[in-house]
């Protein structure tokens, strides 16, 4: 998997955009700005998915994350009040000692990963797989020569989406069903969590402890 030409140009543009937007997500004072920077980071990562030949996942990423999850985030930001942080009356980070400890730890982690672990591991892997890559490339080139060319004329259209769909309904069908169950539980759980006291009373489903507190308060009010 070696990119070249325009692919590598787009790789650098989108990877730098993803990292910058990610940094700004963490640094932004206003939570709405954080959410918007996170959206641009997710879109850049979706573009990287397209460069890697995973068009279906890129589409799912934009539809589910940007279209669903981030809109949910923006609604919740609207519902809670973070004015003190936005106007600069409250710090946005934890205490300095905690922040320094976290940053030292993360700098060590980043150095170990980027300078040592990833290049070494990749070199070893490449050495192991050199022959297999050459063989598989030749085989794939023969198979792809009869595929249609993309509109830009730089690459062949793949059948990746078709294969993902087939795999999802064949060997991944049990996890697929479990995922639908998980989503159902998440819907019910978030509705239960976000109810107000009035809605709980209407459904006759108030916590007994809260109910006894409420009756004690009302009897105290009756006495006085």
């Amino acid at each position, binding site marked *: *998997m070696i990119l070249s030409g325009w692919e590598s140009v787009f*790789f*650098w543009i989108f990877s730098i955009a993803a*990292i910058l937007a*990610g*940094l700004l*997500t*963490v640094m*932004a004072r206003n939570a709405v700005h*954080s959410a918007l920077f*996170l959206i641009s*980071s*997710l879109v850049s*990562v979706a573009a990287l*998915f397209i460069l*890697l*030949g*995973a068009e*279906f*996942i890129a589409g*799912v990423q934009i539809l*589910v*994350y940007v279209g*669903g*999850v981030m809109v*949910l*985030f923006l609604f*919740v930001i609207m519902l*809670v009040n973070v004015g003190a*942080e936005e106007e600069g009356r*409250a710090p*946005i*980070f*934890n205490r300095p000692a*905690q922040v320094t400890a*976290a940053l030292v730890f*993360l700098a060590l*982690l980043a150095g170990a*990963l980027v300078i040592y672990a*990833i*290049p070494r591991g*990749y070199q070893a892997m490449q050495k192991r797989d050199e022959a*297999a890559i050459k063989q*598989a*490339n030749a*085989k794939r080139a023969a198979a792809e020569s009869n595929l249609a060319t993309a509109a830009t004329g730089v690459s062949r259209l793949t059948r*990746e989406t078709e294969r*993902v769909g087939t*795999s*999802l309904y064949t060997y991944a069908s049990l996890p697929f069903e479990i*995922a639908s169950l*998980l*989503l159902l539980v*998440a819907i019910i759980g*978030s*509705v*239960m*969590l*976000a109810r*107000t006291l009035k809605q709980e009373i209407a459904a006759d489903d108030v916590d007994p402890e809260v109910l006894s507190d409420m009756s004690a308060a009302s009897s105290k009010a009756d006495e006085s």
Partner: protein
Amino acid sequence: MNHLSTSLALLFQEASRASTAIESIKHPDLSKFLVIAAILFIIGVAGVLTRRNLLVIFMSIELILNAANLNFIAFARYLQDTGRGDPIAGQIFTVFIIVVAAAEAAIGLGIVIALYRNRETIWVDEIDLMKW
């Protein structure tokens, strides 16, 4: 004379190293994707560890999950190139990670709303009811 030749050899070595660096910038491979994913992961962890706002912490968790997705897709492509293993498995994993992230966001934001209703704050250093 000897000095000159050794320094020339050193210069040549440096030049060849620089040219391989330019070559790797011109033709990014799997390791570049892994580096980008690692940096995104570290930015996400930094957000979780340093921010006070619960909503921004949730957004940082989304960044972490995205870094994992990028790794999965990059390795799926690499496996496709080697012809070993199932090249689609990585993409299937990514679909499930996105599903779990959506469920997690829904539950987490429900908790944020319930918390804000009861405690009037979403700053994690003020939410210390269960702290020893």
